[in-house]
């Protein structure tokens, strides 16, 4: 299982039955494939629909039906469509229970960075899209990211270096190696993969964290 699937599977366990859920652009989109049986969520797509269904078969697709990534979608029974103002009233107004957002960096203050406007940056993600609104309005923000970048630098930091998408908003951080809960008291390590020790995790994690009394093996 590659790291993307691992993260998506673990992140899916953060969703509760009956929740309104917004999955961000990129890796979070895959979370929809791993939602546990018995957990029924109402998926919102920020371009303007609730009750998003699976990708349609060729011939059942519709030029007027796509998700926030421009990909063809279907709608489930009970779906609704609306304009962008309504969509962001839903998001900003606290009507989304959980959002899962891809992150470039997170830190021990619960900050998340997932965009940059700086032209020289190799990590240039040109625009925040709906991410800042989701950070502002969703009741639970789950940040997902690879634990380290390609050169081995930690992406779970003491302090984000990139511009912030949301300040102090992250509740849960899921990497392919660990799960942290974030609060004003800092990061709490809740789960760790079975082939790693806490000491090994500290070596590859820039952020400081405490270890939960009920620390358990990383769930998949």
């Amino acid at each position: 299982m590659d790291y993307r699937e691992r993260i998506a599977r673990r992140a899916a366990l953060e969703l509760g039955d009956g929740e309104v859920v917004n999955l961000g652009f990129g890796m979070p989109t895959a979370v929809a494939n791993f939602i546990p049986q018995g957990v029924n969520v109402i998926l919102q797509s920020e371009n303007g629909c609730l009750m998003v269904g699976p990708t349609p078969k060729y011939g059942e697709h519709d030029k007027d039906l796509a998700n926030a990534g421009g990909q063809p979608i279907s709608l489930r029974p009970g779906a609704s469509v609306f304009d962008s103002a309504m969509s962001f009233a839903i998001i900003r107004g606290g009507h989304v229970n959980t959002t899962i957002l891809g992150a470039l960096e997170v830190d021990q203050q619960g900050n998340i960075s997932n965009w940059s406007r700086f032209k020289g940056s190799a990590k240039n993600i040109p625009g925040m899209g709906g991410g800042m609104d989701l950070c502002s309005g969703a009741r639970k923000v789950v940040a997902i990211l690879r634990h380290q970048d390609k050169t081995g630098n930690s992406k779970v930091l003491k302090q984000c270096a990139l511009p912030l998408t949301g300040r102090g908003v992250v509740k849960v951080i899921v990497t392919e190696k660990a799960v942290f809960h974030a609060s004003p008291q800092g990061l709490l390590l809740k789960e760790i993969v079975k082939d790693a020790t806490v000491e090994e995790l500290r070596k590859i994690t820039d952020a400081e964290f405490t270890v939960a009394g009920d620390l358990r093996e990383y769930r998949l």
Partner: protein
Amino acid sequence: MNKVTTLDKVMDKVHDGAVIGLGGFLGIGVPLGVVDKLLEKGVKDLTLIGIVNAHPFAGGNFGVAKLFKNKQIKKFICSHAGTCPEAVEQYRADELEIEYYPMGTWIEKLRAAGSGLGGVLTPTGVGTLMEEGKQKLTLNGKEYILELPLSAEIAFIKGYRADKMGNIQYRRASLNSNPVLAMAADYVVAEVDEIVEAGEIEPELVGTPSIFVDAVVRCMSFDEHQKAVTDLWTNCGQLKAVNQ
């Protein structure tokens, strides 16, 4: 009153340096005929107000990507520009200015302009670069950013059907930014798949009331539009991939 006209006539209103709004979201609900006409007319130095950019696999050949490819845009006011490589390239080369707003802020700025509001107070972006150069207020212990109205000289929206008076009916997820953009411009052109007589659209199905719309044009039929989007999705594997 009959607002049905031709694209050539409404294009007289678009000049070099104009501030235009284009409805649509990553290729969906985009007035494709309008884009082609803007390309043909070749107006330059446009300020473009659009919620996001082209479809990620447009390759410079679908929707708004064509205008970036042809270097007709001087400034882009959006929430995300990255799905159009041509735009990103021009931005990095200092040929394109981009003004970013969070998506929910972007739409509220337009709604404010169309609704006679002096601005909106949003908590989105507090503690981020979005605070730069803006007034902040604290109300009941919560911080907000004051965002001012945003409007266009001319807006091009995409509807499903229009009646000849200019009432617009939308369809499925192609609403996106269109109904709000239709409120926030001096002159509004609606491109639609079908044109019908006044009275044929049930009043409760009217998404944009006729008074917001100045001109109605039809460039492609429903089936032609469906084919254009189908080709886009199949060419980039988004449809084929699931059937293999």
